[in-house]
């Protein structure tokens, strides 16, 4: 898929069937056609082997360490990482969330120097280590939403709740909308609603009533729409996705190995990026997963054939 196409999909376009396949992909698809894949046996194998959840544990360790480093810095005044997720200083260097900074700049109609330094630094870092990696490796809301998602799936399996999909384009609309509101009214509505900021402040400075808003969002995700905030609303995530659209750290897909049993799409927060894992959809034998991918590694963990793996462009396989 073209780069522009993958960005368009991140912004909300539905994934399309590829028009052209490479010769190698034609052959790979051809081999699988006709020859019955023994998917049943594979699925049984998957069910019998415990998932290692290697990447998930690594990720949670990193995520919790970063978030509690803020708390430690405040409680024990060790001055390592001060502030919260929207803006902070790491050993004195300014860091700032690019989208939040943009909103403030729009509301203020000026560019505070330290904020710009922070936002550019953060943009460069995530542009390198993979855009929405921020979401799954740092964002505290992602962590609690993952727990809510498990509850949702548990309830859904018992037929108590059902997932309602939203049009993914709404995230783009909100992304633009919050920015327009900030520039127009001078108020940053998003920073009031931002569950990342609320949670981060709660972890560092102690919780307040604002946590109710986060609980409301989680409740919505549990009973109505799986991972709704991260999938359909969060403009911070979309910003990191855009910044990291060319990031060298990514999950890569190997068509030849893939058995198309679809385990990866079941665990994925953004399953549209794994559209190529559907039988007959991959236009090439080796592909990169699109920019909306949060590099959470869930698909890498569950993939029984190791068709999905972390890769750093130019460095070969990471694992």
């Amino acid at each position, binding site marked *: 898929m073209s780069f522009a196409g993958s960005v368009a999909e991140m912004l909300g376009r539905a994934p399309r069937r590829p028009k052209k396949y490479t010769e190698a992909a034609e052959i790979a698809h051809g081999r699988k056609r006709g020859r019955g894949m023994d998917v049943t046996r594979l699925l049984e194998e998957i069910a019998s082997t415990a998932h290692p959840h290697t990447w998930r544990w690594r990720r949670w360790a990193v995520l919790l360490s970063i978030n509690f480093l803020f708390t430690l810095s405040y409680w024990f005044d060790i001055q390592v990482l001060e502030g919260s997720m929207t803006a902070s200083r790491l050993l004195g260097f300014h860091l700032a969330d690019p989208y939040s900074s943009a909103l403030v700049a729009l509301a203020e109609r000026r560019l505070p120097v330290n904020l710009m330094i922070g936002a550019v630094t953060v943009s460069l870092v995530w542009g390198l280590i993979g855009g929405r990696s921020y979401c799954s490796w740092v964002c505290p809301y992602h962590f609690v939403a993952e727990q809510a998602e498990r509850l949702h799936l548990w309830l859904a399996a018992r037929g108590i709740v059902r997932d309602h999909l939203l049009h993914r384009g709404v995230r783009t609309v*909100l992304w633009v909308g919050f920015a327009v509101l900030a520039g127009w009214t001078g108020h940053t509505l998003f920073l009031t609603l931002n569950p990342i900021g609320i949670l981060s402040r709660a972890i*560092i400075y102690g919780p307040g009533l604002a946590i109710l808003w986060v609980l409301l969002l989680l409740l919505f995700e549990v009973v109505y729409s799986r991972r709704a905030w991260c999938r359909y609303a969060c403009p911070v995530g979309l910003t990191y996705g855009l910044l990291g659209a060319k990031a060298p750290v990514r999950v890569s897909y190997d068509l030849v190995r893939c058995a198309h049993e679809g385990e990866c799409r079941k665990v994925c927060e953004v399953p549209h990026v794994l559209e190529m894992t559907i039988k007959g959809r991959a236009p090439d034998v080796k592909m990169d997963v699109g920019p909306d991918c949060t590099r959470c590694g869930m698909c890498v963990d569950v993939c029984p054939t190791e068709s999905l793996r972390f890769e750093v462009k130019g460095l070969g396989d990471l694992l």
Partner: protein
Amino acid sequence: MAKQAGEPKKRRRRRLSRKQEQRRQILRAAVVAVGLWALQPLAALASRLLPARKRLRPPGALPERAFLGACIKCGQCVQVCPVQAPKLADLGDGLGTGSPYLDPRMQACDFSCDALSCILACPTEALSHVVQTKEEVRAGFARLARPEACLARRGKAFQGRARGRDFPGVLRYAEIDRWHAMPVRDHPYDRDPCDLCVLQCPIGSTALALVPLTDEAGAPTGRFTPEVRAGCVGCGVCEMICPTEPAAIVVDARARPQAELLPSAPRPPRSGHGRASAAPEHRP
């Protein structure tokens, strides 16, 4: 009957065509987007009503509206403050949720950082870097709200802990420890007349002074009054340290000195409606 009505509904859900499902997805998305944006007027209303309207902000804060827009709600001002005077506002503050404010009665800004650390820490300049010394701060303005309660005005002394043994607030007592603020409860006072507000004012006599009160004939009465002067920056130390309950002297957020207090303006004779002149005494 009910069962019949229920069944086709279930079947219809399963048989949604691609187009129908897509239409529903767009509809849900639209509801969510409109719902989120509808919170803007709601939050704006909340920040205009209730206590949030008159929050005392940390030193250097831009005018309220600009401040709310500029604050990125990161809390760095809280972290650098040696006395942790700024608190972060909660949900009730609407658009101000997560923004810093001071509750001076609980913990005033005593400038014990000596450098306006909060302003230096603020990444968005919501606390404006234009303000460089504590004397330039204009957070609010002190006012003798309850002159009848003021111990000095009643000619009384004060002995003991200013705020009782449980009060958590801290203050820098430079003569004891230049670098660390200590709990107010650990620093008992013995002052006759009571002049705690004047004694602890970090700005000094340009902001607050104890002035003797005289009777009609101009003779001293043995009573005094704290006089708020144009140099008051609104740090709130006077409000925190005032031993009467509630405080006799308070800080009005974002208030500025009345014209009569400005040095350039001629001082008009005090009339009956002035707050401080509610008492029978007047100064010559």
